[in-house]
Structures are given as structure tokens and as C-alpha cells.
């Protein structure tokens, strides 16, 4: 009975808001419509409207997918201190990390769907119904862990919010193990995604065992970077209180992650250049260009510059605690990691191709529009979820039932 009230109330929450809220929602919907049109065009004409070709069979879609898996995994950064150290200020914002993870995974699924040639055949991958190539194909592993992670976060977040809505204390014996389980799950979604590339001996740039650790390290920067900015937006736009200490703590963790990420990058670059094998071409292409193809170089160096600068900002306490420099650092990290995971991972991994051919991939308009549409869909879902979650956690939106604890 109360669940119906919860649903009805939620609908009411998301359909009421000030003009900024509606402007934001309409803006997102507009981008979603543009993305949908672009996608329909892609469905009708085929993936030829993208810039992907046999020489570079994956591009922006899969790059975004990889980046967003990292964002989803990063929810764990907030869970670890909150639950392991039982550190007060972070605990209240964990729920938002989980909601971000949910939206990120929805975006991940979106990017996979638009990337494949026959999304209607995806049921071929299901066990029993189809012929799932498990455990051989890492893509199957990825589907399994992503769905598990999604269900896990979805049920934890829904349960916690519903309990708060009911003004009841949640069952610790149920939630704590689930939340703790989400930590290895977060690690595994990103590890499996890294293994997806890592396992391909045909692509030496990816075939490095350092890939999975690098994925995790960079994810633990990018996810929280988004969240730090979101928290500040929340503090401004809602009455929700997030303590400075919580943000600084997250920023401190990001500094360590970024330091480790840069260390791993140096280790990889050293190995490639010092051993100077044929495999070096990919790193060379990425850093300096190769045979007159330089499009990617600018992005690479921007990403490196952004990561180093952000590391310095986050590691020095005074700049970390200054919200101007902190936000600059967050934006730098966001774009740094976005390039590293998209342009910087997929493109040099596939260029030159396996027969030494260089095809310089730059995303087509269709790819950009469709990607924007999916990002907007993710933001929209996140916005709507926040619109429900914030008043619940603040105790403004609750069931009509007189709760036991209040009696």
C-alpha cells in the first residue's frame, strides 16, 4: 500500500520543480530527441554513418562505455570509507554515489546497444535462451557483472530510500553485507572491462597486464570528480547539507588514486620505449603521432597535462580545500580521464591496425549526437532519481504513516 504511495509521491516529486529544474529537464530531453533521431538514422543507414571502419572497429561509443564503467565503479570510493571506517559525513552521501552508479550503468548499456549492429539479437547472449559463450568471452563476463552491479546498487538504493520514506531504520544485517559485496563488484566490473581489452593478444597496446590496475586507478579519480561537483550543485540548489570534510576526504582519496594512475602510466611508457619493440608504434602514435598522423597527439598531451595538474591540486591540502582550485581540479580530472579512456585507450589500441594500416578515426556527427543523447538520458535519470532521493533523505518526503520511531 505504502509502496503505491511511494511511487505516486515520487512521480509528484519529479513533476514539480522550479524553472531551472524544468529548463534542465527540457534541455536534456531535447538532446535525447536529437540523439534518438541520429540513432534512427544510424539504424536505417547502418553504422556506416559513424566513422568506425574495419580498421578501427570500435570508437567513441565503446570509449564512452569504458569511461562510464569507471564512473559506475567509483561509487565504491564513497562506500569504502563510509562503511569500513564508519565515517559519518560520507555515509549520508553514499546513496548518491549509488544513484550515480545506476545512471552510469544505464548509460553503459545504452552505449553498447547503439554500438552493436543487431541490438534486437542481444537475447542470443542469454543463457539457456541463446548460446552464451561463457566463460570464454569476456563480453559475457562483462554483461554478467554489469547487470549484477546494477541490480545490487538498484536494490540497495531503492531499499534505503524506501526505508527512509517509511521513516524506518533500515536492516543493517541486510544492507551492510550487500554494501560490502558491492565493493568487490565495483572492482570486478572495471577489471572485467579492462580484461575485455587486455585479453586481446592482437592489440599489444591493450595486451598489458597493467591495464586493469590503470583502469581502476583512473576510475577512482573520474567518478568522484563528477560527484564532488554534483555535491556542490546539490548544496546550492537544495537544502541538502554535505559537509566540507566529506568532500575533502573524497578529494584526498582522488589524489592518491591519481598519483597511482600516473605512476602506472609512467611504468607502461617506460616499458614501451625502453624495450622499443614493434609494439611501440601505438604509444608513439598516441604521444607523438606516426607517419604524419597527429590528430590524437593534442588530446593525449592535454590529458596528461590535466592529470598531472589535477594531481598537484589534489595532493596539496591548501588547494584541495579551496573550492575554486578543487573544482578546476575536478574538471581537469574529468576531461583527463575521459580522454584517457576514450580517445586515449580505444584509438591508439586500434591504430595502426593489425596489418600496420593507419586510419585516423575522428567521431562522426552521428556518433557525437547519439553519445550526447545517451549522456543526457543518464543525466536525466540521475536528475529524476535525485529529485526523489534528496527530499527523502532530508525527511521532507515520507509516507503518511505515523512511523514507529516517531511515536
Amino acid at each position, binding site marked *: 500500500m505504502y509502496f503505491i504511495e511511494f511511487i505516486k509521491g515520487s512521480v509528484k516529486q519529479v513533476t514539480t520543480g522550479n524553472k531551472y529544474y524544468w529548463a534542465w529537464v527540457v534541455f536534456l530531453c531535447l538532446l535525447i*530527441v536529437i540523439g*534518438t*533521431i541520429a*540513432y*534512427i*538514422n544510424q*539504424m*536505417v*543507414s*547502418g*553504422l*556506416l554513418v*559513424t566513422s*568506425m*571502419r*574495419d*580498421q578501427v*572497429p*570500435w570508437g567513441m561509443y565503446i570509449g564512452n562505455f569504458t569511461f562510464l564503467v569507471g564512473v559506475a565503479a567509483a561509487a565504491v570510493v564513497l562506500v569504502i570509507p563510509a562503511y569500513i571506517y564508519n565515517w559519518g559525513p560520507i555515509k549520508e552521501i553514499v546513496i548518491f554515489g549509488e544513484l550515480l552508479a545506476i545512471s552510469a550503468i544505464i548509460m553503459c548499456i545504452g552505449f*553498447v546497444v547503439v*554500438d*552493436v*549492429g*543487431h*541490438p*534486437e*539479437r*542481444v537475447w*542470443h*547472449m542469454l543463457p539457456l535462451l*541463446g*548460446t*552464451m*559463450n561463457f566463460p*570464454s*568471452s*569476456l*563480453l*559475457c563476463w562483462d*554483461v554478467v557483472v554489469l547487470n549484477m552491479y546494477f541490480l545490487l546498487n538498484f536494490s540497495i538504493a531503492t531499499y534505503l530510500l524506501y526505508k527512509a520514506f517509511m521513516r524506518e531504520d533500515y536492516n543493517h544485517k541486510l544492507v551492510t553485507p550487500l554494501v560490502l559485496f558491492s565493493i568487490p563488484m565495483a572492482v570486478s566490473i572495471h577489471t572485467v572491462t579492462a580484461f*575485455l581489452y587486455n*585479453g*586481446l*593478444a*592482437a*592489440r599489444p597496446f591493450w595486451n598489458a597486464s597493467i591495464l586493469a590496475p590503470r583502469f581502476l586507478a583512473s576510475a577512482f579519480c573520474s567518478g568522484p570528480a563528477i560527484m564532488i561537483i554534483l555535491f556542490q550543485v546539490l548544496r546550492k540548489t537544495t537544502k541538502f547539507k554535505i559537509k566540507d570534510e566529506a568532500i575533502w576526504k573524497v578529494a584526498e582519496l582522488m589524489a592518491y588514486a591519481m598519483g597511482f594512475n600516473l605512476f602506472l602510466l609512467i611504468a607502461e611508457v617506460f616499458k614501451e620505449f625502453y624495450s622499443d619493440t*614493434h609494439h611501440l*608504434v601505438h604509444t608513439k602514435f598516441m604521444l607523438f603521432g606516426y607517419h604524419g598522423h597527429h590528430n590524437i597527439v593534442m588530446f593525449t598531451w592535454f590529458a596528461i597535462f590535466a592529470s598531472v595538474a589535477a594531481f598537484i591540486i589534489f595532493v596539496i591540502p591548501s588547494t584541495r580545500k579551496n573550492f575554486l582550485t578543487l573544482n578546476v581540479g575536478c574538471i581537469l580530472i574529468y576531461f583527463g580521464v575521459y580522454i584517457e579512456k576514450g580517445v586515449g585507450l580505444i584509438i591508439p589500441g*586500434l591504430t*595502426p*591496425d*593489425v*596489418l*600496420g*594500416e593507419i586510419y585516423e578515426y575522428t567521431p562522426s556527427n552521428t556518433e557525437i549526437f547519439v553519445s550526447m543523447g545517451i549522456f543526457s538520458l543518464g543525466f536525466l535519470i540521475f536528475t529524476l532519481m535525485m529529485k526523489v532521493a534528496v527530499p527523502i533523505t532530508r525527511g521532507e518526503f515520507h509516507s503518511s504513516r505515523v512511523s514507529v520511531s516517531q511515536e
Partner: protein
Amino acid sequence: MTDKHTPKTTTKACSRRSFLKTAGKALPAVPLLSMQTEAGFLERFFQKNFKELSTREKDQIVKRLEQEYEKEYGKKFTVGAEPALKGVQFAYALDLSRCIGCRKCVYGCVTENNLSIDPQIHWIRVLEMDEEEGVNLHNATPYYNHKKVPAEGKAYMPVQCQHCRNAPCTKVCPVQATWLDDDGIVVIDYDWCIGCRYCIAACPYGARHFNWAKPKPKREGINTNTHYLGNRPRMKGVVEKCTFCVQRTRKGKYPACVEACPVGARKFGNLLDPESEVSYILKHKRVFILKEELNTQPKFYYFYG
């Protein structure tokens, strides 16, 4: 299961396209239209993996496809579904000292296998390299454009599917739409492939090709003698590759590229037959395989005759 309602794929697709053009594009429900409401749709949608089909089901599907292709191309097609030959391991050998880079194999393959002209798909890439460097893929190009070949100081190496015993592509396919058949041919079920292109990323030989748009093979002179796992007309959004001309070789014929090669550089046969050409080459010639260090164990051998 019935064959009565053969869907008119092309005409529908065309009208859908023109509809889209005229009626505006902002209908999110339009992709659903591609799931047509014909009786054949459900059976097609729920068609099983070729490996799991019974002989009866295969017969029905083959019949349906033959009708579809006849409608589309106005010619009678035969779609074979011959299983792997017993006691046969197909293998290929290519004499690099003979190859002159004329690309006759490339176009022989295009004709035999109904490869798309637009967008262009070639299952064979002939690489040109510097003779003095030997095989160096990092200094190779398939785009050479000389008046006459072989060009001075250049060497040529055609690359196509190597039909690996330890194939990375079949390993990574999430739906088992591609597999190594018992006679050593790596095949694809085009109706099962979801088009994720993981296999293209995994293939060390650039052998796999994606249908980025609806493939358009040459209509006149289309090869109507086809195989389900081979040269039958494909659809957009699926991966395809060299099948050792499964429609020919499972009937005892040489692949089209062997027949097309003017210098006799291409050799094909059964590895399990000690008298076959490929067995002779393995025994008497210095052979090498491409990217040996990847342990893909190709059945495509290069040699210097």
C-alpha cells in the same frame, strides 16, 4: 513454421526509408517498425544458432532464404548447408616467391563470394612491402597503385582469414556466432551475429569485415551457388570473412582465389591427406605462419617455393 509468407525485405525497407524521409524523423517508435508484423518475423526472430538447428529446421530455413534471395535478385539460388567433411582439415599455402601482387585473387573472391561492392568489402588484402625488408607489416600497404606489378624492389603478401586452430575471434564472440568447424574452417552464422565487432578487435590478421551498411553485391553475375555459412547474401550489421569458399571446397572444388591466381602461388588441400599439395609443402618447403608468437596456430602457411 511456414514458408508461405516470405517477407519482402527490400521493398519494405525502401518504403520505410522513404517514409522516414517524408514523414519526418522524430518518431522514436520507428525502429520498432523494422520488426515487421509478418508471420515470418517471429520465426526469424527466434531462429536458433545454426549449430543447434535440426536437419529439418535447416531445410526450412534454407528454403525460406532461397525464396527471399530469388525475390530480391530475380534468380534461382541454392543455399547449401553441407556439414563439415569427415577426415578433412583444410589448409592453405601461399608461395610468396611467386606472388606478383596482381589482386586477381581479391576480385575472384569478390565475385565468388558475392562481396559488397558498395560499401566495398574485400576478404583478401594484398600487402606490398619492401623486398629487402622481408615481411614487415609496419611498412606495408594494400593501396599500391602501379601500372605494372610486380613493382621494382617490392614484395607482396596477400592476407586473409588464417583459419586458426586457436582462433581469438571464436574465443571472444559473446554468442558463439562464429566457430571452428570440424573440417578446419572458421565459419559465421550471419543470422546469429549481433554485430558487436569484438571478433574484429581480436583478429590479429584483419580478416574480419563488418557490414557497415546493407551490402550491395553485383546484381548481374551474382553467384547463386551459395552456402548458409559462406557466400549467401548477407545483411547489414553482421561480420563476414573468408570461409575457404565453403560452398566450393565442401564439394571438392578449389577455392576461387586458387583458381584466380595467375601464377599458381595459391595452394589448398587437406592436411590429413599425406599426398595433398599442402602436406607436400609442409614436408618439403620452408614455411612460416603470420604472427606465430600469438599462438593462433593458423592453417594458412606462407612459403618460399
